[in-house]
């Protein structure tokens, strides 16, 4: 009985404000959940909080009478820590949307929680294509990139230029497994062969032992299905052990500009990699980077940061159109219905399975002589058009698509 009364009181309270937009407890609360202290903290970390804040400023939320609050937390790349924060945020702190979440194992855990609590989950940092495949939910949008797109970009380009035998060096968790699976599929589809693989603990330090195994396989290409400092150390140590000079080539299946910066061009030159965004593609991107870097220890934005900006912008548009952020499913449905348009990713769409669609780019890392200075690292090798960049809707196995 008591419960019924308080429910009625709540309904009355909600009803009172019906003339205005209804944001739960008056505020749109954005929670940026990522790695703030470990191996992925440069490519996401505090930078994603900054990107989200810039999106809110550029959207002019304050002028439109929308009160937006941004909070951030460190999930330490641990699914249990990430799940706890996500639950506390939603239940206690009334967070309406969780953003970023690199480290696929954490993202997959948060994915379930956000669905159960009917909030919104905008993934920028995580890579596993399962998020729009078997694990897709009506509350999640996978924004920036995924393992399928990386495999389709880098993997295909390398097989087509003669790299047809592969050995994988894989980070032993959800992300590495997904990237290895998607790349192996691309390699085999294009007539290549996978000779073997080894799975290393995440995060690792010494890769020489795994690299020797890769060397012994005689594969032409050693595919690095890892990220962050694992990739940096693998590349550095491969050079040391004469693997690259011995005729085998490395494929960094996921590398960010921060990784290239840490490696230095001397070591990184010639690497081919796939990204959704690079700061030096057009004037708007450059302006964004120049605004972003001074706020973030001089680090230039990665595609993850740009993705956070783009995703938050589109979220705010949808919430503005709905005049409510209460029902996560409804907000995501609105986001799928509205075409996306922002200054970093341009025009695009969000597909029924939650996949954000935009072009991807195949970059090559410049030689030291070609670079004008720090952060001038990429040249575009190819643009992968939006309709070819991501896994076709019918092949993902997302339950939302059939219904």
């Amino acid at each position, binding site marked *: 009985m008591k419960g019924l009364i308080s429910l009625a009181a709540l309904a009355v309270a909600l009803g009172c404000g019906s003339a205005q937009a209804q944001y739960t407890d008056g505020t749109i609360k954005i929670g940026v959940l990522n790695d703030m*202290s*470990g*191996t*992925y*903290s*440069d*490519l996401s*970390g505090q930078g994603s909080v900054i990107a989200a804040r810039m999106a809110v400023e550029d959207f002019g939320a304050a002028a439109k009478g929308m009160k937006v609050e941004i909070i951030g937390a460190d999930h330490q790349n641990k699914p249990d820590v990430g799940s706890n924060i996500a639950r506390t945020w939603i239940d206690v702190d009334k967070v309406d949307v969780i953003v970023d979440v690199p480290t696929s194992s954490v993202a997959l855990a948060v994915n379930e929680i956000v669905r159960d609590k009917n909030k919104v989950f905008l993934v920028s940092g995580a890579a596993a294509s399962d998020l729009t495949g078997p694990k897709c939910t009506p509350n999640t949008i996978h924004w920036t990139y995924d393992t399928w797109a990386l495999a389709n970009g880098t993997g295909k380009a390398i097989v087509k230029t003669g790299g047809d035998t592969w050995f994988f060096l894989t980070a*032993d968790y959800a992300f590495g497994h997904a990237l290895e699976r998607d790349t192996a599929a691309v390699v085999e589809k294009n007539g290549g062969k996978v000779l073997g693989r*080894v*799975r*290393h*603990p995440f*995060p*690792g*330090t*010494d890769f*020489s*032992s*795994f690299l*020797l*195994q890769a*060397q*012994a396989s005689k594969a032409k290409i050693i595919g690095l299905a890892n990220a*962050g*400092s694992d990739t*940096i*150390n693998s590349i*550095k*140590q491969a050079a*040391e*052990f*004469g693997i690259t000079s*011995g005729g085998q080539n490395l494929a960094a299946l996921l590398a960010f500009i*921060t*990784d290239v*910066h*840490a*490696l*230095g061009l*001397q*070591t990184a030159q010639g690497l081919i990699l796939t990204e959704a965004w690079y700061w030096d593609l057009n004037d708007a991107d450059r302006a964004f980077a120049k605004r972003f870097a001074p706020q973030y*220890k001089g*680090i230039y934005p990665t595609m993850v940061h740009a993705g956070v900006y783009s995703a938050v912008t589109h979220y705010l548009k949808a919430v503005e159109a709905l005049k409510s952020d209460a029902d996560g499913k409804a907000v995501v449905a609105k986001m799928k219905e509205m075409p996306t348009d922002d200054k970093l990713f341009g025009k695009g769409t969000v597909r029924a399975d939650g996949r954000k669609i935009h072009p991807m780019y195949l970059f090559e890392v410049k030689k030291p002589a070609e670079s004008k200075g720090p952060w001038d690292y990429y040249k575009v090798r190819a643009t992968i058009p939006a309709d070819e960049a991501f896994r076709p809707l019918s092949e993902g196995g997302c339950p939302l698509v059939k219904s």
Partner: protein
Amino acid sequence: MFEVLGISSQALFGQLLIGLINGSFYALLSLGLAVIFGMLNIINFTHGAQYMLGAFTAFFLLRYAGMGYWWAIVVAPLVIGLTGIIIERLFLQWLYKLDHLYGLLLTFGLALMFEGTFRNFFGSSGLPYSVPPELQGGRNLGFMFLPNYRAWVVLFSLAVCLATWFVIERTKLGSYLRAATENPTLVRAFGINVPRMITLTYGFGVALAALAGVMAAPIYNVSPQMGSNLIIVVFAVVVIGGMGSIMGAIVTGFGLGIIEGLTKVFFPEASNTVIFIIMAIVLLIRPAGLFGRGA
């Protein structure tokens, strides 16, 4: 050519050698920890951070003073050792009479502060540092390609380890040190400045960590979290070897490097847990560690 469990002897020798290389880092770091614990009774959780500081000092010397690797290998341990002496004088000397827990908390807190500060200024991706020109390249041993730099790491760390063992276990200075830990009052009665000796010992242990950091800089990425990734393993090595045992730290350091290397071939997924499994087994059978003097 012969095969062991489907792995060719070539690959096996390669992995043994790589295990030895990684083991030399474990040995050098656990040696510093063992010296500090043996002489000061402090569990130095700052050790990983001091290793990181050593690597960063090498980087700074190169970038801002133009001093290369060979300078760094001398200067960085001195500088970081000096900061160790300051830490000992300011904080640690007040803790010797208290429970181990206090020293552990203090050093752990310092480690977090060092790492946090460096992450704040330099980010987490790390900074590049290359192999010195004299040691670039490598030689083909038939079963594997051995980079010259890695060979240098093994030989040099072995030399440092043995020299340290010799000084502490076989010289007069070492005997003073050992006596001072057993009975400081009595040693002081002989006119030896025990507090100063202990301060210098801590400085030396820290310098060893910094030395390992300089040696790691060209191989691993110079990054703020490089120490915390390694330190837990190194603590396991010290526990297996026996807390405070110098020889134990050296032998188990190299030995566990090799065991870990072999795990990376036969069951790579377990390669970061194998050391802890061994630790559990050793603690069950010999609670004082393999080389520990019985508790």
